[in-house]
């Protein structure tokens, strides 16, 4: 056990975690030349296409130092805020963390928040100054920042480049020297923490765990404490690039277990595995529940696929413990689920993964944050869905969640960023020069304003030189209205949005225009209206196209016409019929694409 080191790599987005992981794998000969590729641990197609890590990825390396053999369990984590739940679970399986800081960009918002996550779990931190090969690197300056932040010694900071491989040998040595081996009694009854899982359609559910105490043996009868189900450990093993079956996995080590479970509900991330014969006294504390930031409805395009969507979401949830959902129904869309996400990127990824991994075409409705409704009769409840908005005659007030935002940027962008924040109903609460050129700005603003496109806007007004972090500070009364959309007079509940009264007119107009653009011309005229209560505040018309039907249909026309109708039909697969109108999938998210 004293030869095991469990560590994760944490950092702000894009600071080079996955690339450094590549080098560690390479220098420990964990991968063959053929297996090696850039960001090899980002093995999901979505990760490769977008160039970001979405899932934490654990892998085991063998390493020899001074003639002694070590087992190093590495977990590469994502840097984007929307996937921070991945980071926090990985941390729970480790004793140490490499805190990577990009030598050109310096400390950024997620550097700080991920560091705190690690410190909460008493992880040993090894600060790594990465990308020092970059011409724009400012190693001394960034070292100052790191010393400030960690209170560490300057010499403790490792300089490295995931690109050239510089510093990688030293990092490996320091992992062995500085990170403590796992503690835990090997003689005690088995206690293993499930920190991740995935559904495999052939083998059932694969759970990833870290043995806290005791050891787990292949073929043994095990029990999942929270669900109180018993299974046979059909296969256990360690995680190389592929899974590698083992007879036993001892205290402190990380591995996987396959029991043939096919029902997604039987496995819970955070659960404890023990043995039936000699169970442990108490379960491991597990993980804190995720607190979703945004809510949106997810509906099958084809109403018949509701049950299949449910089972797909349950399976996806195994691999994304930050996804929460509960059934809901909509007059326009039928049965579906109200889902909670950690942010807009998270929502997008869930939708994509449902399509790619489970072949489910879904409609995602207008996202919203959760509000508190107070009624005149003293009742109070949470609003997760515009349809929960109270009848104005019974409403006392609505409160909306506020956040404290911290933005670090270059001095020259202060003006533009302030304008942006004020437009988003923000109030500045502090301004702090970190250096002569770097400023920290503090704002209080409604969460609803930042979850949608704030981050993109911030990036564009600051030309990318702004990092952003936020945390909730409670609720404040707000003048919100429910904006409804009607198509040919019929309200489409799935298109309703909650919005501040001051923004409602411009918003209503823009959304009608956007919908007009997205709803393709059909065989009928379509009237799009935005209304608040009974009052229509905007209107657009989508003209019909039918004349084509009676155009000349001559010999050469047949294949042209066939292709046209084929295209119509193809398009329809992604459309949802609401009354007489077909609404394309993207229209439900039209709100997000307004400027």
């Amino acid at each position, binding site marked *: 056990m004293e030869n095991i080191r469990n560590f994760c790599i944490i950092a702000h987005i894009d600071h080079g975690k996955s690339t450094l992981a590549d080098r560690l794998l390479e220098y420990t000969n964990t991968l063959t030349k053929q297996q090696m590729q850039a960001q090899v641990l980002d093995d999901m197609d979505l990760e490769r296409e977008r160039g970001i890590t979405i899932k934490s990825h654990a892998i085991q390396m063998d390493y020899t130092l001074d003639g002694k053999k070590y087992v190093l369990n590495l977990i590469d984590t994502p840097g984007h805020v929307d996937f921070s739940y991945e980071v926090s679970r990985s941390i729970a399986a480790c004793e140490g963390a490499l805190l990577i800081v990009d030598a050109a960009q310096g400390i950024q918002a997620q550097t700080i928040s991920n560091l705190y996550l690690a410190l909460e779990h008493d992880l040993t931190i090894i600060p790594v100054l990465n990308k020092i090969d970059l011409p724009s690197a400012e190693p001394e300056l960034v070292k100052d920042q790191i010393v400030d932040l960690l209170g560490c010694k300057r010499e403790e900071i490792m300089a490295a480049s995931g690109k050239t491989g510089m510093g990688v040998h030293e990092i490996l040595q320091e992992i062995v020297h500085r990170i403590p081996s796992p503690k835990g009694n090997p003689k005690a009854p088995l206690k293993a923490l499930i920190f991740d899982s995935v559904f495999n359609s052939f083998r059932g559910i694969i759970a990833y765990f870290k043995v806290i105490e005791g050891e787990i043996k292949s073929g043994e009868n095990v029990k999942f404490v929270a669900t109180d189900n018993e299974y046979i450990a059909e296969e256990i093993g360690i995680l190389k690039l592929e899974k590698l079956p083992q007879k036993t996995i001892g205290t402190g080590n990380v591995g996987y277990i396959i029991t043939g479970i096919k029902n997604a509900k039987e496995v819970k991330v955070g659960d404890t595995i023990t043995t039936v014969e000699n169970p442990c006294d108490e379960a491991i504390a597990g993980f804190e529940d995720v607190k979703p930031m945004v809510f949106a409805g997810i509906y099958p395009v084809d109403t018949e696929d509701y049950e299949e969507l449910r089972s797909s979401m349950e399976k996806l949830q195994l691999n994304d413990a930050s996804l929460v959902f509960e059934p809901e129904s909509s007059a326009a869309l039928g049965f579906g689920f109200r889902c909670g996400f950690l942010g807009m990127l998270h929502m997008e990824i869930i939708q994509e993964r449902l399509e790619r991994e489970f072949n489910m075409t879904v409609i995602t409705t207008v996202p919203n944050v959760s509000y508190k409704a107070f009624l005149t009769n003293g009742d109070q409840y949470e609003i997760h869905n515009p349809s929960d908005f109270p009848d104005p005659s019974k409403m006392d007030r609505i409160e909306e969640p506020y956040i404290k935002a911290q933005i670090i940027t270059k001095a020259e962008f202060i003006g533009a960023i302030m304008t942006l924040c004020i437009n988003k109903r923000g109030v500045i609460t502090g301004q702090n020069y970190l250096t002569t050129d770097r400023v920290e700005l503090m704002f209080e603003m409604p969460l609803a304003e930042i979850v949608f496109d704030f981050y993109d806007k911030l990036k564009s007004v600051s030309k990318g030189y702004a990092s952003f972090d936020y945390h909730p500070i409670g609720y404040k009364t707000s003048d919100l209205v429910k904006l409804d959309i009607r198509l040919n007079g019929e309200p489409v509940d799935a298109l309703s949005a909650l919005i501040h009264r001051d923004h409602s007119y411009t918003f209503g107009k823009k959304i009608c225009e956007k919908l007009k653009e997205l709803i393709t011309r059909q065989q009928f005229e379509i009237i799009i209206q935005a209304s608040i209560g009974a009052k229509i505040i905007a209107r657009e018309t989508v003209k019909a196209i039918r004349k084509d*039907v009676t155009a000349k*249909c001559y010999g050469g026309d047949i294949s042209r016409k066939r292709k046209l109708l084929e295209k119509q039909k193809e398009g329809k697969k992604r459309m949802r019929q609401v009354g007489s109108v077909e609404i394309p999938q993207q229209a439900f998210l039209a709100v997000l694409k307004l400027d």
Partner: protein
Amino acid sequence: MQILNLTLYPLSYLCHSFQMAGVYIHIPFCHKACTYCDFHFSTSLKNKSAFVEALLREIELRKNFLDEPVTTIYFGGGTPSVLKADEINRITEKLAENFKVIPQEITLEANPEDLTQDYLHSLRSTMVNRLSIGIQSFRNERLQWMNRNHTAEQSLQAVQCAKDAGFDVSIDLIFALPAMTMDEWQQQLMQADALRVSHISAYSLTLESKTAYAFQVKKKQVQELNENDAERQFLAAHDFFTEKGYTHYEISNYALPGKQAKHNSSYWNRTPYLGLGPSAHSFAMNMRCWNVANNNSYIQYISDGVLPLSCEELQLKDELNETLMTALRTAEGLNIETLENKMPPEMYRHFMKEIALQEKRGWIERKNAVIFIPFKHWYKADRIISEFFITT
């Protein structure tokens, strides 16, 4: 989709054994360009004779394309009435040399200004027995806006003379013109009926890109007629002509009993046809081919002995979709029994489910094994048909 280069295929590949076939000949010349038209044509007649020579050559080059007897020939365009009678004769003779021609219906599209007594007389010496006359409107101000080359009076005269000369006559009308009122359309219908021709095609004006009409709409000089009025005019034509004894046998076509256009019907019932001339489409077995849509390159290639053809092989689903598409545009409808053998069981089940759904909506009706779209829904036929389309 697969675009094949025909030169790689032995011509016999395209041969098969149907009962009869049609020939379409595209005459790519017009006196003037009509405001709304996006067909392939040139307004300069200087290449006409070179074109006729090329056409004759093409007939030779494609002599193996059809096995079955040619029963219908259709001169379309463009404006085929720019051809002299002897040019027409040379073409039909060349066809007879290379194919088995058993003429039943030989149609020439003609514009009224060309149909003089003399011309009609000379046409009597050709195989042509049917004229499709582009009347479009009986109002001179409309004809002017359309940039047509004739007046309403010329149209009336042309139709009368053509009938007197013994031709079967079909006329084309256009509705849904900008700002057309129901009154105007009713008048058009009455004037058409007064001519007592055996066949009438009524098309709605459609906005095609890169036409003068599209330009005017973009510049807001004219406005497209709204869809509701257009649909009302469509239905009015149906009521009117049906009342007058015409059968509304296809979305845009009306005929007196026994006078349905044979050649056009072959497009809809999957009879093979050979298309000659630039931009012309051919269809045989499971291949659709089309000639290059450029007069000069057409003439050039053909004179070099090369067929400027692109081909597309139809997959089973394409085949089925086309059958659905064309059959459901007709009053006769689609016999679904014939499909059961062609479709894999899974597809057929799905198809039957779709039929039941559309029947419930009232969009299609069913008589024994035949399904059809009721007249009142014809105007949205495209939409209904696309619901049946097989996509995978």
